[in-house]
Structures are given as structure tokens and as C-alpha cells.
């Protein structure tokens, strides 16, 4: 304003506050951790919430559904075979007169177990191999890539059929057999992403600041490939359920009279033209599971991807 006022500034007017070392480090806003932030954003994502909700509902029925009518999944009654839903046979009966409600929810249980196990194995092996391979490159990459190539290039049926001959078809052997080759796509996707990211400036910065490989991988790289990883998982779960269904198609699925959704859908598909309800119920549950995982996957990706932080 005026020079006069400027001139009237005297040292007495100032007060020495001292130096607060820590104040400079303080954030302008409350520090929000990666996961906390993710959870917050996830909760505002309706699609993901619906997906989660459907999964919870199906999960609930998969375990509680069998308690809801007085039947079980294996008791046969030829007198009421191939009946559309009636009385407390909510989903009707199959060609043995077995209760389809029981079989469907039992099957959902089995399929979910197989899918989660297989996806878990895929995730653990795939992410480890993919990130190590992509990050370190060189000889490590070369060796790991050869292993990936070998697994990728053998028609996986040979391995899976052999596995299932050695171990009798059950939930864990099927999940294991599926992940023997199932982790490979995951590893490839992760590796490609890491290759893309590792030469970016922020990684360079972190390395310059003295961050270790482990820190860079788990703190900087893997969170940034979370998007593709989660998509890969949302594909891994349906593909595990499907591959199990395919095993039913060639006769190697779960051991009867136990059923999985895949084997029920396969059995039902043979009745498509005559008793379509036998396909309808298990297929609907199957589709709902898929839908739910896809919505959930989309939501999780939005929530976990740091680049989408607002």
C-alpha cells in the first residue's frame, strides 16, 4: 500500500517462534493409508457392493441352503424323477429323483471351494513368478520364462488328466491340477506390466532414495499392477469353475454323487430340450457367481488402483 506503512515496520513487531523440525514433515491432510483408502473408496462403489452382496448371499445359501428342506444331495427316489419344482423341492428333481435344491447349493459349495483354492494358488505363484521375472530381468527372467513357456506349451489336458489319475478327483486335486498351468497367464500379465512400469520415474526415484528390491516390488510395483492382477483373478475364478465343468464334459470332474455347479450344468445341458429347468437353476447360480465376481473385480480395481485416487 504505502511506503509509509512499510517504513513503520519495526523489528519489535516480530516474534521469534523458534524452529519446529517436525512441522515441515507434516501432511496438509490426514494421512490415509493405502488399504484404508481402498476400503473407503470400495464402500462408495455400488457395483462392487452389489457384487459382494450377491457373493455373500450365494455363499450363505451354499452353506445354509442344504438345511432348508429335509432332503440331501444323494438320496434317490425314482418315483419322482425329472419333476419340475413342487412342494419343498424348490428346484425340482433330477433324473434320479434327487432334490436339485440340495444338489445346486452343494454344488455351489464345491465349485466355490475349487475356484477359490485354484485362484489362490494362481495368485501366489503367478504374482511371485511374474514380478520377480519382470523386475530382475536377465538370467532370472530367462529361466523363469523358459519354465513358463514349457508349461504354456504342453497341452494342459495331458498334465491334468495324469494328475487326476494319480490323485482321485476331489476338490483339492482338481484345484491343484487346475493351477499347475493356471498360474501362467497371471505370471505373464504381471511380468508384462512390471516391464512397462519398472523404467518409470517413480521407480527410479525410489531406487535412488535407496529403497531395496523388496520394497520397490511390494510398495511401488505390485500395487500399480493390482488392476490387471485383479482382472486376472476375476477371470481365474470363472475359468477354474469352467475348467472343472469341462472336466465333467470329458468325465473327469468331481466324484459322483457329489456334484459341482459345472457338473450340474453339464448334466442339465443334456436335458436342455426336454427338462430345461434342470439346466436353468444351476446355470443361473453359476451366472450369478460370475456376474458377482466381475462386479466385485471392477470395484476392487477402482478401489485398489492408486492412479484412480481422487
Amino acid at each position, binding site marked *: 500500500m504505502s511506503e509509509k506503512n512499510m517504513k513503520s515496520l519495526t523489528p519489535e513487531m516480530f516474534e521469534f517462534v523458534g524452529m519446529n523440525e517436525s512441522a515441515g514433515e507434516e501432511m496438509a491432510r490426514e494421512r490415509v493409508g493405502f488399504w484404508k483408502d481402498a476400503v473407503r473408496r470400495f464402500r462408495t462403489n455400488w457395483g462392487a457392493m452389489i457384487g459382494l452382496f450377491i457373493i455373500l448371499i450365494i455363499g450363505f445359501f451354499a452353506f445354509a441352503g442344504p438345511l432348508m428342506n429335509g432332503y440331501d444331495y444323494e438320496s434317490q427316489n425314482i418315483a419322482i424323477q425329472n419333476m419340475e419344482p413342487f412342494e419343498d423341492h424348490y428346484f425340482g428333481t433330477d433324473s434320479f429323483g434327487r432334490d436339485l435344491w440340495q444338489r445346486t447349493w452343494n454344488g455351489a459349495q464345491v465349485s466355490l471351494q475349487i475356484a477359490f483354492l485354484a485362484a489362490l494358488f494362481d495368485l501366489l505363484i503367478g504374482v511371485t513368478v511374474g514380478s520377480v521375472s519382470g523386475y530382475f530381468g536377465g538370467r532370472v527372467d530367462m529361466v523363469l520364462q523358459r519354465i513358463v513357456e514349457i508349461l504354456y506349451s504342453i497341452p494342459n489336458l*495331458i498334465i491334468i488328466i495324469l494328475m487326476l489319475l494319480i490323485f482321485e478327483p476331489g476338490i483339492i486335486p482338481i484345484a491343484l491340477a487346475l493351477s499347475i498351468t493356471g498360474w501362467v497367464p497371471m505370471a505373464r500379465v504381471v511380468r508384462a506390466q512390471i516391464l512397462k512400469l519398472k523404467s518409470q520415474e517413480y521407480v527410479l526415484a525410489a531406487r535412488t532414495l535407496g529403497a531395496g528390491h523388496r520394497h520397490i516390488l511390494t510398495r511401488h510395483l505390485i500395487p500399480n499392477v493390482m488392476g490387471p492382477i485383479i482382472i486376472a483373478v476375476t477371470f481365474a475364478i470363472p475359468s477354474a469353475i469352467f475348467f472343472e465343468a469341462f472336466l465333467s464334459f470329458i468325465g473327469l470332474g468331481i466324484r459322483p454323487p457329489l456334484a459341482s455347479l459345472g457338473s450340474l450344468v453339464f448334466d442339465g445341458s443334456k436335458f436342455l430340450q426336454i427338462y430345461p429347468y434342470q439346466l436353468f437353476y444351476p446355470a443361473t447360480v453359476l451366472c450369478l457367481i460370475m456376474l458377482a465376481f466381475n462386479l466385485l473385480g*471392477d470395484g476392487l480395481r477402482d478401489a485398489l488402483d492408486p492412479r484412480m485416487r481422487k
Partner: protein
Amino acid sequence: MDMIKYTLTRLGYMIVTLWIIVTATFFLMHSLPGTPLQNEEKLPPLIRDQIMETYGLNDPLPVQYMNFLGRLVQGDLGKSLTYDGRSVTEMLLEGFQASSFIGMQALVFGVVVGLFLGVAAALRHGGLLDNIATIVAVAGVSIPSFVMAGLLSYWVGVKWQLLPTALWGTYEHTILPSLSLSFFVIAQMSRYIRTEMVEVLDQDYMKTAKAKGLGRQAIIFRHALRNALIPAVTVLGPLAVNIITGSLVVETIFAIPGIGEFFVQSIQVNDYTLIMGVTIFYAVLILVTIFVVDILYGIIDPRIRLAGARE
């Protein structure tokens, strides 16, 4: 120069990889129960042994293995043990014509539709097209192929009689099988492209491009799509091999003379030569594809240098 060296190195690795695959499969396969004989169920044990002897199947495994490698080096895959005396190479090539035609068609259709849906979905993030893309993607992965193929064959083929319900011969016969196969491709493509595009469109260099005054089309195709394609290519290569080598389900349901069924049937009947044939055929296709994909990487994204050439 680097390129040639790199290619040669990779070729060397491919041969080693192939050898490991051949060896592993050979020994795994021989641990399958039973013999390749057709009438095994009714054959008296004495005669069975004698016939196995005639086919050289009673020799110690290492001997059989060396014999096999010897023939393989000369490019001879041998003769099928099930289809009396037919050459495996001939069987594979014959079947591959049908399988690859259907697969290629499915692939082209699937990739085009998938790309379109993926890009459109990303551009209209949350809009109608995005919803349609999501629906197609979810449907493509949530209906098992035998249900999808069965429904198409029944509805289009039997109920509406628009296209042949099955069999092989004219172009019309290829449409439904290709369509059933393409759903999976569409689903995979559209999802990956959409995800990548959404991310890429958010990047700073996109804003730079816009600020430079580049046209919308140029931005989308020159910058966004190119970057979004990288993960898609990773997925697409092996997917393509999978698709053109036929699908047991689709070929069974549409009665197509392809090779998809060989992958399962050869194992079921212990047709050793055919198992080795399909394994080698498939492995070579995949190995070459992975190699090509890696090369494409360098072209699409200059930041990724060829791993082998660097060190």
C-alpha cells in the same frame, strides 16, 4: 545385428524348450494306464504282450524314447496307433484345416468386436456402450461353451432353421461354431482393452497430446490404443493358438472334423504317437507365437527393449 543375434538365441531356446516338453510328455504319457490296443478289454494277456512286442511297445522306455527322437529329428511323427496306419502328420494337417478356419474366423470377429466394445466402453466410461460391453464380457465368460454352443445349435439351427445345426461342408456350416468360439475372445479382448484404455486415457501424456491440439481420433488411435494394446497382445497370442487348434466342445457339438478332439481322445485311447503329435504341434505353435508377441512388444512399445538383446 542385435536383432539377428536375438532371434538366433531365442530359436536356440525354443529348441531346448521343445525338447524338454517332448521328453516330459513322452515319459508322462507312458505312465498312463493301459496300452494303445483297441481290443484291450477282450484280448488274452498272452496275445496282448505279443502284439505289444510287434509294435515295439515292450522295449525299455529309454529305447523307445531314443527311437522316437530319432524319427522326430527326421521330421517323422509316426503313425497313429488307433487309426490303423494313418500318418499323424497327415491327420493333424487335415484336421487343422477345419479347426484353424473356424478359429481364425472366431478370432477376427472376436478381436474386432472386442476392440470396438473395449474402446467404446472406455471412451463412454459408464455409458450405454460400457454397459453392453460389460454384459457381453460377463456373458462370454459365464456361460460354459457347451451350453452356449448347444443353445446356438438348437435355437438357430433347429428352431429357427436359419443356419445348419451341425455338420461340415459349406460356409454356412462354419458360422455357428465360429460364433460360439468368439464369445470368449470378445469377452477377454473387451475387458482388457477397456481397462487399459481407461488407465491410459488418464495419463499425463494424453493431456499433453490434447494440449498440443491433436485430433480426437489421432489421440485415441496413435496414443491411447497403442499403449492399451500391450497387455492385449500378451493375452491374444496364446489365446489365438488355443482357438485355432480347435475346441473339443465346439467340434463335438457341431460335428466338425477338426483336431480339437485329438487332445482328449488320444489320451483316452493311449494313442502314443498321436499324443506326441498334438503336443509337438501345439507346442511349436505356442512357442512361435510367444516369440512373435515379444517382437511385437518392441514395436508397439519402444520402452520395452528385447530382454535378451540387452545383456
